[in-house]
């Protein structure tokens, strides 16, 4: 809760200090970041400074970032003193963001407040597709950083798909050599580590998605026999369809690749995809038909898909990683471990949530949060009004507890470096509030001015976050770098 009191604090951005007894280098790096934000404003007024520092207390020196890691913080500001207490450095990151948002950038005042804050949902994700169009490492960082300003904590990296394979594997280097658009459109191991570390420093966990057995066209360029051959029935005009589940070599590739991916990405989870597997290609392939007959599966392509998924899950289980799967894997009744998170993306998500939570599985929501779809006007409102726990009025507390949160999705058909930042922000901040704030904070009229202020703050920090209102302005407008004059 927030208790505002009379009497504001006035600070002087140049000399204001964050102080702590913590010995953590990460805490200091976060201080440095927020110092920069405080200093972005020009000020020409004389200030009667009342507040010189923010005292920061970190209770737990453990800096491992997990889904369960505490992000709680307590922030107290009066005209003369300010303290931020958090269980972990990640609570400090959340609390400093709040502190920076409290600053009135016209007069350098902060209100006297006492804030106790913590997330409502543990899983507050944003997904980006870097296969249909490539997004540069520097732009990925922009998005991650802006996500941390909205207190999101999961970057679901849909890194490969049909059109291109930009992830450069050390086990199978030819996957990106042949599957990426060009040698300039790849994520090297260095790039991937750079992203993981950058995200970590912003309290964001990177969960990679290696989507199979559909959406794998780009894999096939480097792996002969990996995909099902079916001229005329393949993906996007190619003669190939999904992974060929009857080829034993496929499973050794998957074992090696997932062993690598689960090493490279420290997250507890890997996303296994599993969506939109089209059967016509499998149906057209003679070898598959014969194999199915030999395995008593004739005509039962659900069974074939399940066979594949089960083999894949066995591999990932042996790597001791938990996994997230798109909803299809759940409703096709593949045997999934109790730790699995079911990721709903289709319009009937409420039914999926009902069934999955009844069966004891955790769920996350993306249906309704496809922000790559654009609409004229204030489309953030409908993103804002969606609540993942609203799937069933009679859901039990145990069921509700299994709803971990959700992920806003930016699919890559129409985005790349040129427009992804302005399309993401501040629209994604609306679901971000839904996922963090208390259930009863739902009023769009209460949100609108805060969202506009939030986007202007992003603009001040140098991000092209687009306007959400019919008319208006920011204190400092976005300016483009000028090289061409």
């Amino acid at each position: 809760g927030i208790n505002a009191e009379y009497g504001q604090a006035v600070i002087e951005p140049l000399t204001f200090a964050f102080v702590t007894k913590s010995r953590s280098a990460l805490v200091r790096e976060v201080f440095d970041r927020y110092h920069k934000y405080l200093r972005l404003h020009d000020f020409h007024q004389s200030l009667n400074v009342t507040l010189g520092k923010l005292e920061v207390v970190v209770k737990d020196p453990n800096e491992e970032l997990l889904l369960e890691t505490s992000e709680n913080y307590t922030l107290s500001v009066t005209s003369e003193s300010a303290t931020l207490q958090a269980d972990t450095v990640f609570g400090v990151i959340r609390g400093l963001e709040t502190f920076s948002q409290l600053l009135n950038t016209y007069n350098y005042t902060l209100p006297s407040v006492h804030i106790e804050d913590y997330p409502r949902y543990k899983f507050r994700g944003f997904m980006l597709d870097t296969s249909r169009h490539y997004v540069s490492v520097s732009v990925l960082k922009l998005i991650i950083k802006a996500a941390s300003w909205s207190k999101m904590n999961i970057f679901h990296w849909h890194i490969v798909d049909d059109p291109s394979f930009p992830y450069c594997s050390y086990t199978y280097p030819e996957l990106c050599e042949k599957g990426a658009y060009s040698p300039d459109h790849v994520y090297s191991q260095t790039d991937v580590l750079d992203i993981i570390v950058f995200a970590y420093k912003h309290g964001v966990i990177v969960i990679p998605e290696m989507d199979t057995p559909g959406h794998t066209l780009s894999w096939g360029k480097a792996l002969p026999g990996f995909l099902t051959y079916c001229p005329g029935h393949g993906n996007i005009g190619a003669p190939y369809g999904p992974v060929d589940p009857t080829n034993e070599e496929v499973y050794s590739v998957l074992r090696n690749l997932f062993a690598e991916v689960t090493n490279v990405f420290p997250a507890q989870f890997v996303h296994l995809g599993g969506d939109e597997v089209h059967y016509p290609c499998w149906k057209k392939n003679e070898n598959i038909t014969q194999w199915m007959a030999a395995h008593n599966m004739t005509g039962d392509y659900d069974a074939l898909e399940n066979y594949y998924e089960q083999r894949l899950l066995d591999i990932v289980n042996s790597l001791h990683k938990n996994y997230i799967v798109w909803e299809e894997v759940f409703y096709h009744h593949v045997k999934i471990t109790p730790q699995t998170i079911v990721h709903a993306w289709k319009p009937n998500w409420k039914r999926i949530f009902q069934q999955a939570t009844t069966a004891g599985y955790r769920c996350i929501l993306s249906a309704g949060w496809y922000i790559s779809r654009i609409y004229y006007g204030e489309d953030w409102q409908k993103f804002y009004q969606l609540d993942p726990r609203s799937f069933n009025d009679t859901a039990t507390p145990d069921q509700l507890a299994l709803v971990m949160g959700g992920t806003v999705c930016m699919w890559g058909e129409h985005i790349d470096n040129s427009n992804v930042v302005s399309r993401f922000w501040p629209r994604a901040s609306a679901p971000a509030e839904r996922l963090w704030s208390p259930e009863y904070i739902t009023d769009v009229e209460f949100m609108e001015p805060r969202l506009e202020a939030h986007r202007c703050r992003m603009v001040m920090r140098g991000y092209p976050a687009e306007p959400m209102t019919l008319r208006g302005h920011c204190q400092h407008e976005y300016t483009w770098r000028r090289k061409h004059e």
Partner: protein
Amino acid sequence: GKQWYQRRVRGISPALFLSFADMLLLLLTTIVAVTAATGEDYGLGSFNILPVVPFPQEAEMYSTARRSLDPEVFRITPTPNIQEDKVIASSIARYEFYFSRFKPLPTSPDGTLTSLTLTVHSPSTPLSIGVDESYSLTISPSSPTASITAETRFGAVRGLETFYQLYNVTDGTFPSVNIKDYPRFAYRGFLIDTSRHFLPVESIFKVIQGLSMSKFNVLHWHIVDDPSFPYYSPSFPGLAEKGAYDMNHVYTISDVLRVTSYAEDHGILVVPEFDTPGHTLSWGKSLENFLTYCPGIGTFGGDYGPINPSIDANFGILQKLLAEVTSVFPGGWLHLGGDEVPFKCWQSNKELVAWMKQQGVKTFSDLESYYEEKLLDIVHGLNTSYVVWEEIFNNGLHIQPDTIIHVWKGKWNETMAKVVKAGYKTILSSPWYLNYITFGDDWVKYYEVEPYDIPGATPEELQLVIGGEACMWGEFVDATNILSRTFPRASAVAERLWSSQKVRDRKDMSFRLDKHRCGMCAREIPAESILHRGYCPYEFDGYDWH
């Protein structure tokens, strides 16, 4: 090596002399052939031998030879009569800079291009709407020197852009071509609205760069409107001091001149709009008795509506302001607005109604007519061409024969039929409100518009259609997103306005348009993708953040 990602280049028969229609046919055949040859591309994109937007009027291919550019020695050399010219010098600097940024690539066996000569016959012709923008461009297989010849400097600017677009950035070569090109329509405009959201001058510069890449020639600057008045008038400083969002959101005269000069260097004329008598809420903050008082039923539900025509002093203000505006903005064009005048505010004002009775002004249409006639009298004294929104025509106001009618509402075909029948020149915007975004490939519907689709119009009447204009109104748009929302969607409109009426193959355009936007990204204009997957050899890389 790196060869695995390079697009295969397919040759065509030498010495082909083609009309644009044959050219298109050839392009399509080439696309098919190349897609077949590069099966692993999965339809991602196609090699296109003339990836130019807008597509040129006439092109002939000399041969399959492709000379490469040598960025270290390459120079653009103007004839002596234009060496000192600002438009030419700045354009040469610009294009030499763009070429200098491309990575060096291996030399083509067909030889290199070491220079491009620019010849302009009439170097002193000023920029105007209707100025000769034609040019011819020759890249010969037998010469290391390419050439552009144009009647005016602005034709040369158009030719330079075509030359840039002919460069294949992945293999570093140019095709051997002879292009003769000229616009179909004289007026090819783009509207920006700096009242609803302010655009810093740098962002207007970026818009101008992108417009000139698509051979637009008019920037319609809807500079003031209800929400804010950013134009900082020396005659009426209070207009901006009270009517702008704040004094960091204004255009000084110096800002305006920077914009008009920068636009001129890109062959673009700036047409300012001072929209009256509606859309003037921001004016009223500093001008007493200027707006009609109508508590609770005014603009945005407030207390003030349109300009009050019953007060003579208001016309004195307009006279002084518009005289200033026409002297600040070069080019001699002015947009007078005149759209969406609501009558209910006027109706509710008893003093105004009494005045009407006294003056014998019977209806509110007559009142609007009274206002516009007085305004046009003022403008006639200013020696400027002027444009008005279609309501002025639709409402049957008495207007001079040289008025240009700007059509923006629905059923534009019928409206334009009436406008040209009445003998007025006209500009089309109705189908080209680019601020109305929709998910997916909405550029197609902009592209498929045909401005001559006017029922019953005679060839003489069609001549009165002087062009069209894409509009980016300022609701939900500011410096953060205007570029990616405008480009390359506006380029689809640009091709409709520049290229031959017969150039309309949507599939071919989708590949050219995607390539066009990649050319923009290479020049740090964040133009969004057209194809649903793919990449640019030079991705947009122009964010500058803290």
